């Protein structure tokens, strides 16, 4: 598979008479984009708003941030499979991307109605809270959208995410026929025999357990969100959006998945430091020991059959999902595959272990710090001048019960706001860590 990725940097987004890209400025024909979204009869209201870095703006509720990408040559379409999109295998040919911007999906629709998982992310474009995430540096085109409330939760999720993808497609089309100022060729050329072989074991939450449904909306592999045995993906498929966000944390968005620095740098060092074999995507939150161990065994076996001598492992969740992740690590180590685990940590009060099931085989861990914003001591985000999205947010009286229905207070989005429950830098974008 050979993919040429053409990058069009965006430093400004503005509404105008036509959707076009010129010298890093993206002009958006608002009415045309909205008309495209309104073709879906499930959409009741939709609007577009722009938020630029440095502005005193808060966006809430943020369900996803998508980097506009479009296939120019080669089979399939970017962000395949999800929301009914074409499932043709991607990763070949040429893809153009608008870098430095995001299409932000803003809606009150929650992931599913079974309880436990709630949309919690809001984004600031300036100030300390903005600095914690990469989105504060993006030109953000916000799709503020609500679907027909009479629809079931899976339909509502599908409708609003499709609306965001429609806008993403619309703006990405502006650069389909242009010559990219930057381009990079991605291919896994044969490498010398003496270079070690490595895989990326990418563990990704499935909403199946929490929602009770195999078709609930969440992070998807070619549109499928259900629990499945591990997938083997070529890294080019990731670049074409075969793995999408979102999940509940700010670092689990389609944007962070497509721009994952672990993936990109594993790839860029292919042929120099190692032979990169590919990506094993493990869906997580199986709910019996047998299933979790089975996934661990099969993931390690797959890596071994590929010839892996090393593996980097990341995950995007908390709680019992940890078990299949650490069991994959253990199984790899027992097969002689050297693993490095990139993970956040839980409370360290009283000298307790900071992960759910510490296993001695996980002997090479890089920590992205405590994942709870309360443990990190993140202060309330200050008041802002403008809000994109809902004017009110529910926060619990006791900040510590931020997840779940412990919310008993409606506060103005504009005012000072406590941070979401989890920080959790899944892919190590930042340098925050822990030490003892």
């Amino acid at each position: 598979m050979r993919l040429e990725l053409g990058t069009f940097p965006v430093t400004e987004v503005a509404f105008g008479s036509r959707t076009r890209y010129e010298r890093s400025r993206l002009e958006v024909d608002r009415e045309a984009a909205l008309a495209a979204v309104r073709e879906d009869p499930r959409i009741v209201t939709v609007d577009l708003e722009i938020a630029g870095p440095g502005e005193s703006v808060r966006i809430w509720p943020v369900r996803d941030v998508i980097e506009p990408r479009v296939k120019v040559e080669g089979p399939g379409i970017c962000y395949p499979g999800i929301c009914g999109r074409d499932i043709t295998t991607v990763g070949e040919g040429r893809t153009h991307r608008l870098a430095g911007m995001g299409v932000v999906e803003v809606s009150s629709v929650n992931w599913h109605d079974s309880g436990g998982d709630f949309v919690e992310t809001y984004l600031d474009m300036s100030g300390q809270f903005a600095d914690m995430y990469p989105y504060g540096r993006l030109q953000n085109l916000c799709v503020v959208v609500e679907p027909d409330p009479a629809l079931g939760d899976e339909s509502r999720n599908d409708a609003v995410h499709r609306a965001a993808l429609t806008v993403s497609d619309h703006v990405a089309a502006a650069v389909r026929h242009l010559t990219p100022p930057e381009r990079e060729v991605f291919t896994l050329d044969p490498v010398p025999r003496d270079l070690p072989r490595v895989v990326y074991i990418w563990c990704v939450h499935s909403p199946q357990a929490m929602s009770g449904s195999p078709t609930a909306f969440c992070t998807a592999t070619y549109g499928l969100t259900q629990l499945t045995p591990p997938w083997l993906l070529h890294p080019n498929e990731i670049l074409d959006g075969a793995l999408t966000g979102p999940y509940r944390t700010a670092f689990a968005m389609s944007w962070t998945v497509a721009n994952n620095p672990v993936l990109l740098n594993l790839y860029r060092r292919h042929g120099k430091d190692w032979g990169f074999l590919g990506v094993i995507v493990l869906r997580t939150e199986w709910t019996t020991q047998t299933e979790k161990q089975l996934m661990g065994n099969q993931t390690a076996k797959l890596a071994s059959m590929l010839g892996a001598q090393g593996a980097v492992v990341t995950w995007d969740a908390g709680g019992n999902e940890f078990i299949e992740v650490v069991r994959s690590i253990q199984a790899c180590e027992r097969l002689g595959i050297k693993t490095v685990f990139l993970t956040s940590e839980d409370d360290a009060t009283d000298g307790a272990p900071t992960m759910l099931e510490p296993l001695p085989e996980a002997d090479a861990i890089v920590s992205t710090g405590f994942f709870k914003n309360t443990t990190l001591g993140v202060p309330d985000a200050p008041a802002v001048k403008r809000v994109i999205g809902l004017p009110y947010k529910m926060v619990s009286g006791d900040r510590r019960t931020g997840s779940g229905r412990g919310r008993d207070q409606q506060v103005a989005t504009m005012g000072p706001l406590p941070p979401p429950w989890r920080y959790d830098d899944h892919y190590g974008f930042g340098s925050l860590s822990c030490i003892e």
Partner: protein
Amino acid sequence: MISAIYNFALTTGANRVVRGARIEHVCGDPSLGPEKDHAYGMRIVTTALDAVATPVSRPTLFDPLAPGPALEPAHAS
């Protein structure tokens, strides 16, 4: 302790661990139908009682499903 994710209970120091059915329904399995569900749940609970009546020196698994034929149906999650 009765848990479907029993291994982690063992590695984190629980001394008497009984294997439960599934996180979402620990003491039984609704997909088995009412009679078998009840029998399975009873087997789990009696195994747990046997466990508290058994001396152990370290984390030990008590598996209601071993030996003998499995009650657990082979469905994926």
